[in-house]
């Protein structure tokens, strides 16, 4: 491996750096997505300007909003289960932070390098379900309860296609380690031509589409936003939250969109890498040091593209009904992803 981050550092310093890096990796995408897509792209689609006052073109609007939320009183309903009510947003946000821990940003720029990174990512992403469910239950509000239960049903239904879609990638790469999946894509070749590596979006197109649909449902974004459903359930499980705790849900929502986009980029779009053939790299060790700087930028670009698609769909589609969503998951997505796994496995053995 290259030596940029291999300086001898005491364990506590590494830990602090990782925590800081993780915070940046969660909050920076969240802030960017909120500003670029929620404030500006959505406004553009709806023929309005969006925030324009705070900072140039409203770029500091988010800070104003955060400041506003921080000043608000930490309210909780009289009959709420107070302890559970208060930890629910923390649980949701924790899941996002746990998720970003396995995302690689460069040859050495990672927080942890798990062997079973994919497995871990899929496992911790469902922790947020728990947070949403207890938020819905603890609010002592009928709308919140309906929203929480819907969320539980929906998120469990969509874990499955997501896992199955990723299995195709895992079979093709032969590893569950994110770094090796990225390596396999960038060092790979398409019928002997290695000009663009072998990003799995080409061979795993079906898997990619299913993964993105499942991500959309996992994030409870329109068209799968029944747990929130402003017009029906008045924001569902978030109804009773205000101030800082609402802010946590809000950050959680958009940060998770960013982190899932990062994961999708790593799994399907070649991650932080550029095709290794361009610079004559052949293994992890031979990669130049500057990739640790360029890698995060590439990841960020890909994240913006993918979360742009997520938000684009979110702003233009109406919402499904809960039973239609379940039908879609169990009758369409899961069979298709199973077929995809079968085809991938057969082709893997054949070639």
């Amino acid at each position: 491996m290259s030596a940029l981050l291999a300086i001898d550092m005491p364990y506590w310093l590494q830990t602090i750096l990782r925590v800081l890096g993780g915070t940046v990796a969660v909050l920076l995408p969240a802030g960017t997505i909120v500003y670029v897509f929620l404030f500006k792209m959505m406004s553009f689609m709806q023929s309005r300007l969006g925030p324009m006052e705070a900072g140039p073109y409203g770029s500091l609007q988010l800070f104003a909003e955060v400041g506003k939320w921080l000043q608000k009183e930490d309210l909780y309903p009289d009959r709420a289960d107070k302890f559970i009510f208060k930890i629910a947003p923390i649980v949701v946000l924790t899941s996002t932070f746990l998720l970003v821990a396995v995302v690689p940003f460069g040859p050495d720029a990672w927080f942890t390098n798990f062997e079973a990174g994919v497995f871990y990512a899929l496992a911790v992403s469902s922790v947020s379900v728990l947070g949403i469910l207890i938020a819905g239950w603890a609010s002592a509000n009928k709308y919140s309860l309906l929203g929480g239960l819907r969320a539980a049903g929906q998120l469990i239904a969509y874990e499955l296609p997501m896992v199955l879609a990723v299995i195709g990638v895992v079979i093709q790469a032969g590893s569950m380690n994110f770094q090796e999946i990225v390596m396999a894509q960038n060092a790979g070749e398409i019928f002997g031509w290695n000009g663009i590596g072998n990003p799995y979006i080409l061979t795993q197109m079906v898997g990619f589409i299913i993964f993105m649909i499942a991500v959309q449902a996992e994030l409870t974004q329109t068209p799968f936003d029944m747990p929130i459903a402003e017009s029906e359930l008045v924001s569902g499980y978030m109804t009773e939250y205000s101030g800082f705790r609402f802010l946590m849900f809000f950050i959680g929502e958009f940060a998770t969109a960013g982190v899932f986009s990062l994961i999708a980029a790593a799994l399907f779009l070649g991650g932080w890498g550029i095709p290794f053939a361009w610079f004559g790299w052949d293994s992890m060790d031979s990669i130049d040091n500057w990739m640790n700087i360029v890698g995060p930028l590439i990841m960020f670009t890909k994240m913006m593209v993918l979360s742009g698609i997520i938000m684009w769909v979110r702003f233009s589609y109406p919402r499904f009904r809960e039973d239609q969503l379940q039908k879609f998951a169990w009758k369409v997505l899961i069979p298709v992803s199973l077929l995809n796994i079968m085809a991938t496995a057969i082709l893997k053995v054949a070639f």
Partner: protein
Amino acid sequence: MTMLGDRQQLAYIASQAADARVNVELETEGMTLNIGPQHPATHGTLRIICRLDGEQVVWAEPSCGYMHRGYEKLTEVRTFPQVTALVNRIDWLGSFANEVPFILAAEKLMGIEAPPRAQVIRTILFELSRIANVGLFLGDLGVQLGAVTPVFLAFRDREYVLNLIESATGGRFHPNFDRIGGLKDDLPAGWIEETRAVMKKLQGFCDQMEDLLFGNEIFLARTKGIGIIPRDVAMQYGLSGANLRASGIDHDLRRDTSLPMAWNKADWKVWTHTDGDAFARCWVRLQETRESCKIVEQLLDVIPSGPIMTKVPKIIKVPEGEAWVATENPLGEMGYYVVSKGDLGPFRVKIRSASFNNMSVTPWLLKGVYVPDVITILASLYFILGDLDR
């Protein structure tokens, strides 16, 4: 504590126990969900009490009156010309259309008729307020179904219509422009050309909505087959407007009655749909917006010259008598039953507003649907709270 007699107390306890027993025997534990009075789907203050079994509604009842402003009573202490200022707040999205039937009723009692020019301009303004109203419905429908974008497009394009209404009448929402015997003012210069351009834009808006919503798979899945009102039920509950026509009943007061208005001067079509579901209601409204644009475009060509007011006395006293006039308003049939005793003001006015009757079908309609469909059905029935509670 109030003193109850022993017998009363025992009877009370017995009745409570009987209720409890019935509940235990007949019902699983349900949940009563109050949709409203503060809820985005009710666009105002309507309360719908739903008893839920899971997400399924087993019993529902609308509880209205939270926005009752007592217009029927208020008209009794106003003079006839003052009433228009009140009644255009009934259906606040298409407010000019509320004034017309009342003025027509007063004119009927007085035995006068507006001059032809005023009739045509009245009809144009009537149709413009329909476009402003139903255009917003098309956008609002998206919001109720979870799509945030259409409503902004609807607000944008409604603004063109409101600007027209404002430049002609001086009021964006509450024109208060209709007078007994004609209109307050003539049209401003350049208004006709501007209206033509706006009608082009609105036709484009309808096409856009059709692309954005009516061609969307999710929209179809959410509205097709939801909230079906059969023909006979629609007639029994006294539905009117697009809700009635979506159930396959070809009934439009603009065509079927002979009021002194100018609808018969234009060539247009009454759209009906055979399905009677939420999609049919939305689709009929979309087509009606287009037809309204056509009516306005055609009437702009045939505005006759002449006075804008007939001769009416300075102080209007309406002769004794009773009159009923109903028109096809944006929300449905709206009528005024005006009783006059020969005074300056009406003796009694009964307002028949469309939303109240359209709402009355909800207990029947909401039985057995899911909570998201409650919202779809309410959105597709399209009521306005001012019109519902008056």
